[in-house]
């Protein structure tokens, strides 16, 4: 009896909830698979998709976003073996799943913890509340392939931002597989967009893009490139998260910093009178 011929997977980009190939028609080889090599144009398309998704995602109720993020964790749990097959340690998949759950719960709590009433010296109602900054470009850390990726995506989107992620060039398979998890989790298209390929092609485009509100340079290991990206980001005063130091402990409690760095605080005043 002949052995069954396997059906192979095509690893593509994830943009606007769809899985297109790079418009450039290019790919590169990782772990014997052809992976899309995203172009500058793909990066721009991804920003358009991310921008289009902002209104609905930021406007969704916090409860709804929390439910969807929790659903992502459920889907991730179900695909555990798939990630393991790609070489992601089982512990890491578990940690990544737990991190989704952790962040999912923040959706309707962060505004309470991070905002609140201000006791101004006058007859005014005065309330500060965090809001998403908008479209965030994220450079995922090279490793750990899944936990690192989840640890930068979840805090950005839980509060209502949408993201364009430049996946780790050396570990794109986990990123595309995560995209498949996201695509089956009721996450609206465009909230997360994932580009695979060379950082040198996509990241400068994202850093300079005037319709991107913030950039997370976590995965940029080249200090010169990071500084250069920060200079580009200054053009429209993007909020910048600088790279993490080598040896960063991704399993540690992440704190609120990754969420709050991508938030705006809006303060509303109104007189109190009869």
């Amino acid at each position: 009896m002949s052995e069954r011929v396997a059906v192979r997977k095509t690893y593509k980009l994830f943009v606007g909830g769809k899985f297109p190939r790079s418009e450039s028609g290019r790919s590169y080889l990782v772990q014997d698979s052809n992976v899309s090599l995203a172009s500058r144009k793909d990066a721009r398309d991804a920003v358009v998709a991310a921008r289009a998704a902002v209104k609905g995602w930021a406007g969704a109720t916090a409860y709804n976003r929390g439910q969807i993020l929790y659903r992502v964790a459920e889907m991730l749990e179900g695909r555990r073996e798939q990630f393991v097959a790609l070489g992601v340690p089982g512990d890491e998949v578990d940690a990544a799943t737990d991190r989704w759950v952790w962040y999912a719960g923040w959706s309707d709590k962060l505004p309470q913890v991070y905002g609140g009433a201000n006791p101004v010296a006058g007859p005014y109602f005065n309330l500060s509340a965090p809001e998403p900054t908008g479209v965030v470009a994220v450079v995922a850390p090279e490793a750990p392939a899944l936990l690192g990726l989840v640890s930068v995506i979840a805090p950005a989107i839980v509060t209502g931002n949408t993201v364009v992620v430049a996946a780790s060039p050396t570990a794109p398979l986990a990123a595309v597989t995560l995209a498949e998890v996201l695509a089956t989790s009721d996450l609206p298209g465009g909230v997360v967009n994932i580009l695979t390929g060379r950082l040198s092609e996509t990241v400068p485009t994202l850093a300079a893009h005037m319709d991107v509100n913030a950039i997370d340079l976590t995965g940029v290991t080249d200090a010169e490139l990071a500084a250069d990206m920060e200079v580009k980001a200054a053009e429209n005063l993007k909020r910048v998260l600088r790279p993490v130091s080598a040896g960063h402990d991704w399993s540690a409690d992440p704190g609120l910093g990754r969420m709050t760095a991508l938030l705006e605080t809006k303060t509303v005043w109104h007189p109190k009178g009869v």
Partner: protein
Amino acid sequence: MFEYAPAPESRSVVDIKASSGLFINGEFVDPADGGSFKSINPASEEVLAEVAEGGAQDVDRAVRAARKAYEKVWGPMPGRDRAKYLFRIARIIQERSRELAVLESLDNGKPIRESRDVDLPLVAAHFFYYAGWADKLPYAGFGANPRPLGVAAQVIPWNFPLLMLAWKIAPALAAGNTVVLKPAETTPLTASLFAEICQQADLPAGVVNIVTGAGETGRALVEHADVDKVAFTGSTDVGRAIARAVAGSRKKLTLELGGKAANIVFDDAPVDQAVEGIVNGIFFNQGHVCCAGSRLLIQESVAEQVLESLKRRMAQLRLGDPLDKNTDIGAINSAAQLSRIRELTTAGAAEGAQQWSPPCELPERGFWFAPTIFTGVTQAHRIAREEIFGPVLSVLTFRTPAEAVEKANNTPYGLSAGIWTEKGSRILWMADRLRAGVVWANTFNKFDPTSPFGGYKESGYGREGGRHGLEAYLNV
């Protein structure tokens, strides 16, 4: 007719020194290269003082002094003691408020009514508020043991010289940092007087250093390798340059930049208060306010009536001597700013908008600009897009709430916005959608030390004021 006789505040309450030095390590010192510039009274062009111009060497001395004070004194000092110094400063400011207010009006050109009733009370309140945080930082929500950053480089603008100083210095010191502050070159005098107050409070040497000078001094400070934090309030262009300058460094950056706020008036607004809010929104401090309501969006169905009321109200504005207690609109801060305002208003007229000012006699000497509105403005006009930073209001109309939001947000800026309507649910609907850091509903240009202030988009990042304001000065 009821003509108000002149009611000038006495300037004898303040003793302006003919020259002022740099304040470094607790002492007034001469700059290394001996440079100086003149600070003038913009209402008369009279020279008020010769002010030391700090160079790179002076900045370096100041940063070293701040570093030493951070490591030896201020950093290790218990929060409760830092608090007491800040409380002292707050009290001295209250006690010397008249002197400070007069000096502020002389150097800046703002009406004494505003420096007396707005700037100075807020300055004291800001120090008082942050003083109380100094020994409560573990409760601020930034972890059990939040740490200061170190030496903060702070560059402030000329529109609210002392208030911006307070916004910068009070939270920095409360959090345990030491500072080197550069005031604006046209308004350095109250900062120098503040330095004297630090001496009077026996604040340890080096905790606050004040280096006067212009853009080059600021650049040297921001680019100094040994500062841990940069805080800047000013124009978006300079903010951008600073963001580039600190790229790739460890320096934490907060920026409070320009704005082009929409002040939105609906047909069901409390109209008399809305008119006051429009006037306060654009003519407060001669419109030298980053969060000024410089774009008036009126619902088309009531545009004529509102404009009529606005014009009637504008005719009551009293322009003139900033030290006269009845002055509403003082002098434009500098010749350079006046020419910028003139350039943009000329462009507004050239692009076809209709310019109107009430009858208003301008003094012969000094820098003055009559309160002005432009009607027939569209989003495409330069005066609807660029920050004028003067007493000039661009008036646009809208038909629906959605259109108002769209127009309000159609700008690279996002500092503030105003909404005028008696309908509560519409206020909240609008407030959710306006991309601005401060939304004033049925009020405008209100400030409080407990209330976070800062922008979206190109209006900068970080917040000043409130619990949020501490974050800029803590390692979180």
